[in-house]
């Protein structure tokens, strides 16, 4: 049994123009200790997927489908049961370390919080454990910094604190939503490496969410590409990146800035813009921007087509995209 099994996940959000589907029929599984990447642009539904896993969707959102964590169904689970899982079995790291910490509490206290909450540790024991955690995530001089307030730390240091908080109870699954987007590139690498090491050490599964194909390529073994609320391509990271099948994935790779491209070369882009959630067509969500789209693409959601071993793309024009001979 996989650690996490998501089937046909549907998330609808309340907007001024009525309910809009943010996630439409996403299905994936995550094994114990596995590192899975979820890539997509802003508004593709990747953050909503993450929040849905924790039952933290915004007010008025509707959730359908199935999320099984160690066989336990999370959809429709009581809030008190979810509270018991959150922070204990499932940890989450947020994108903005500047705002993810309470400005009024010392960081040591915030890291100790989950331990007091879920493990019932006394204050001194929790503090000691918090210092050890801060040390483990690579915060230098952890003993002293545990008494610091968030504003006294740099962005990278704060993100280490946020990660220490998420790791406090040694969760089975860590969801990291763009954990390094707000940080500079060298820090990004250090923190991602540390996350990967921690996952290796403790057998913790990692769901890494990013808009950056490079980050996904270096830190995950399997990946999902999300567009317009659907998972359009999935498979082993190496195989997928070697042979990007879905026209959207190809466009995403093509749009990466490259060193040495020379002055005056415009960055390649995907024509059009990401669709408004409320306006995503019923067929392939990418059809409106796809140069290969035919009428059949707009008629119905494309079924998963095999590309390679474990590698699947939801596209009926794979032959035209040059994937199949």
């Amino acid at each position, binding site marked *: 049994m996989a650690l996490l099994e998501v089937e046909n996940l549907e998330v609808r959000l309340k907007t001024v123009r009525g309910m809009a589907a943010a996630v439409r029929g996403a299905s994936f599984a995550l094994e114990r200790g596995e590192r899975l990447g979820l890539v997509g642009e802003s508004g593709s539904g990747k953050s909503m997927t993450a929040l849905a896993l*924790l039952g*933290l969707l915004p*007010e008025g959102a509707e959730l359908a489908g199935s999320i099984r964590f160690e066989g336990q169904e999370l959809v429709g689970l009581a*809030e*008190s049961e979810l*509270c*018991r*899982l*959150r*922070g*204990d079995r499932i*940890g*989450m790291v*947020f994108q*903005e370390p500047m*705002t*993810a*910490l*309470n*400005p*009024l*509490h010392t960081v040591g206290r915030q890291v100790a*919080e*989950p331990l007091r*909450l*879920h493990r019932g540790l006394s204050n001194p024991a929790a503090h000691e454990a918090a210092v050890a955690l801060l040390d483990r995530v690579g915060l230098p001089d952890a003993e002293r910094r545990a008494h610091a307030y968030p504003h006294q730390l740099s962005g990278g240091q704060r993100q280490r604190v*946020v990660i220490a*908080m*998420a790791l*406090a109870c040694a969760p089975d699954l860590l969801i990291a939503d763009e954990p390094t987007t707000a940080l500079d590139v060298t820090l990004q690498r250090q923190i991602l490496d540390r996350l990967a090491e921690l996952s290796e050490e403790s057998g913790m599964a990692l769901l890494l969410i990013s808009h950056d194909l490079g980050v996904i390529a270096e830190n995950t073994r399997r990946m999902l590409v999300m567009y317009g609320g659907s998972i359009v391509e999935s498979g082993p990271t190496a195989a997928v990146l070697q042979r990007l099948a879905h026209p959207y994935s190809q466009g995403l790779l093509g749009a990466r800035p490259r060193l040495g491209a020379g002055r005056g070369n415009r960055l390649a882009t995907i024509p059009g813009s990401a669709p408004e959630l409320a306006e995503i067509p019923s067929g392939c969500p990418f059809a409106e921007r796809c140069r290969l789209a035919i009428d059949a693409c707009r008629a119905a959601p494309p079924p998963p087509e095999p590309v390679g071993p474990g590698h699947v793309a939801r596209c009926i024009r794979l032959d035209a995209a040059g994937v199949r001979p």
Partner: protein
Amino acid sequence: MSDLALSFRRRALGHASFAVGGALTLLLLLAALVSLVWTPWPFDELDIPHKLLPPSAAHWFGTDSLGRDVLSELLAGARTSILVGAIAVGIGVVLGTALGLLAAARRGSIEELAMRFSDFAFAFPAILSAVMLSALLGPGIVNSIVAIGIFNVPVFARLTRAQAKAVWAREFVLAARAAGKGGFRITLEHVLPNILSVIVVQATIQFATAILAEAALSYLGLGTQPPQPSWGRMLNEAQLQLLQAPRLAIFPGLAIALSVLGLNLLGDGLRDLLDPRLARKR
């Protein structure tokens, strides 16, 4: 932390409205405290032969139409003002903040219910609810405290709800929820500490309003009853001698005005000092 406290003290003393407001408020507190152990004369001692005396060495602020020492009455009146203000604002802060926090945490129908209730309470001005309460239960200091307190509940409920909702929308609350905390703990540990300064500032300003309301109620004869000392009642009694002895109205009037001014300035100063971002925007 200590250098934080030090810089706060330096900024506080340099802030004009905070310093002036603090001094006036301190004077009010001091008057009330002193009156507990000492007044020049017993504040409720009638001395008809010596009525309407002008200020002298024996009676610094003179005597009133029943020969009571005005200074003693003023000092003792401060006591009443502070008692009514503190309890009434206390009622408002405790009930209102609880209601606002509940509304922000639970949303939905509970929020609707709490806010409609506070709209309902807000619809009755303090004076009107005091008149109602007096009609029902008879005039007196307790009823005026309850009436002013009820009037303060929606003030704090609305403020707290708006502020708490803003905190709930912040990412560290989402992070706290992701750490498995329930609504109650988040409210106590994350929301309340982050809005406390706003509540303190509002409480200071409401304190001024409460003093004013108490004086108004006593002036109308609905609040403090004799022989309990009250600035509002002194004003009421002074109007009969307004032409002969205007000072009888001027002294309590000044006491009320200075107290209200002091508390308002203190509230403004506190707001600037506790939330420097707001100060810059103004």
